[in-house]
């Protein structure tokens, strides 16, 4: 995934991350990363190492579409309408589509970021803060590892997936899957 991202994207993501990460950290900004205070976790039962949470890489953008500011410079028409471009997203859009459209989440003034209900900018790498505004119950569960998935060490470093790693933000309902083969019935096994 990483190799596919153009250098400009990486630079931009780094720039976006630098802002909240340098100061008091994302914790002060918007209670994001599902972390417990490090001190509380430092010495746990079993002499386990202090827990470290690592954010999974967010899914890649559609090839060539980012940064959005290549096309959208400055604010555009904020009125909801049928789009000529982005018709792929528009046709698949199923996220309270009756009431919402692009600019309810994407920032009109700067399309390279998202925005919260109060207008604050949110980078794509922290989209969970945006999701959490409406889905507070899921957000609470996710921050403590009950909703969503974590992989790695149960008593140490683990990677947590973002909302958008599993849910398409434009059509978030989980899609049905083809199941793996059924087990053999006993009579089907050779004796």
């Amino acid at each position, binding site marked *: 995934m990483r190799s596919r991202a153009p250098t400009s994207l990486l630079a931009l993501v780094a720039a976006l991350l630098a802002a909240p990460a340098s100061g008091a950290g994302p914790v002060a900004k918007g209670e994001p990363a599902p972390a*417990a205070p490090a001190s*509380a*976790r430092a010495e*746990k*039962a*079993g*002499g*386990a190492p202090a*827990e470290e949470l690592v954010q999974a890489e967010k899914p890649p953008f559609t090839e060539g579409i980012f940064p959005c500011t290549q096309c959208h410079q400055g604010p555009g028409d904020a009125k909801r309408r049928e789009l000529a471009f982005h018709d792929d997203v528009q046709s698949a859009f199923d996220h309270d589509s009756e009431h919402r459209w692009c600019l309810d989440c994407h920032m009109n003034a700067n399309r390279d970021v998202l925005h919260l209900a109060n207008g604050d900018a949110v980078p794509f790498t922290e989209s969970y803060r945006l999701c959490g505004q409406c889905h507070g119950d899921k957000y609470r*569960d996710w921050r*403590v*590892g*009950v*909703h*969503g*998935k*974590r*992989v*790695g*060490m*149960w*008593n*140490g470093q*683990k990677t947590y*997936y973002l909302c958008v790693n*599993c849910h398409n933000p434009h059509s978030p309902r*989980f899609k*049905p*899957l*083809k*199941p*793996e*083969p*059924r*087990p*053999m*019935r006993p009579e089907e*096994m*050779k004796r």
Partner: protein
Amino acid sequence: MTPPNGRLTVLNGEEEAGTGHSRRAFLQMALGGAAVAALGACGAEDLLRRHLHELSPEDVQALLARLEKKYSARYGKKVTVAATPALPGVEFAYGLDLSRCIGCRRCVYACVRENNPSRRNPQIQWIRVLEMDKEHGVDLQHANPYYEADLVPRPGHFYMPVQCQQCRNPPCVKVCPVKATWKEPDGIVVIDSEWCIGCRCCMAACPYGARKFNWAEPDLPAAEMNPVTHYLGNRPRPRGVVEKCTFCIQRSRVGRYPACVEICPVGARKFGNLLDPQSEIRRVMETKRVFVFKEDLATEPHFYYFYAT
């Protein structure tokens, strides 16, 4: 109770010397020195050895080395057999979110790839996913493990994966006539497949159908064999012994999540230390609707089903 260093321990510590001794004595008497020599070094040592709990740490190491050598030769790659003991202060528990599971069976095959069961004849799978009717709820009269579908979840159904429930009060352990299966201090119920005599009493005793029997020589292609093994877990089993889920003991005892947890595409599977108030499993216990399967049998599983929504 502190386990003696490096040794695998039983939970309740009370060990009867009887079983181990009598079997050993019997075999020695029956076979005689010459016959024993004829068996070859490896075979004789394994046949005449004592119960795992009676072995010294050096004997355990020698046993592991013999097995590593045997498996490495058989599968043509470097196989490791660990005997990592239970971590102190850890009691494992597992949570499965029935409101999320979609019945895709990814867990079944992740388990198979990790744990080296026989692939086809016989086919052994430690996880069985039951398709149930929403109309009837959790009712085994309406459970189907053999469902086939183009897409899951199918309307009107929900799915309930069942594997070893790692009971605190395990009926399977109670009935074993040779103490080949026991409960470890971290709550995992294990089997010593070197010691199992294949009587299948434990299978009859288990109310969850979690134990599987190797009716024939296991069919495990070398290419698919996972070489990172634990003595009490996923090392290759011989014909005629019972096996089952061990919460991926070879992974969980070194801090990793079990394979089924990591594969689940909907994040329905949770795992952790019940004694750690910050763990995911404790959050589940404290904030969700939780039940245990067949609660009325008082098996007191370490495996919890819950509904997150």
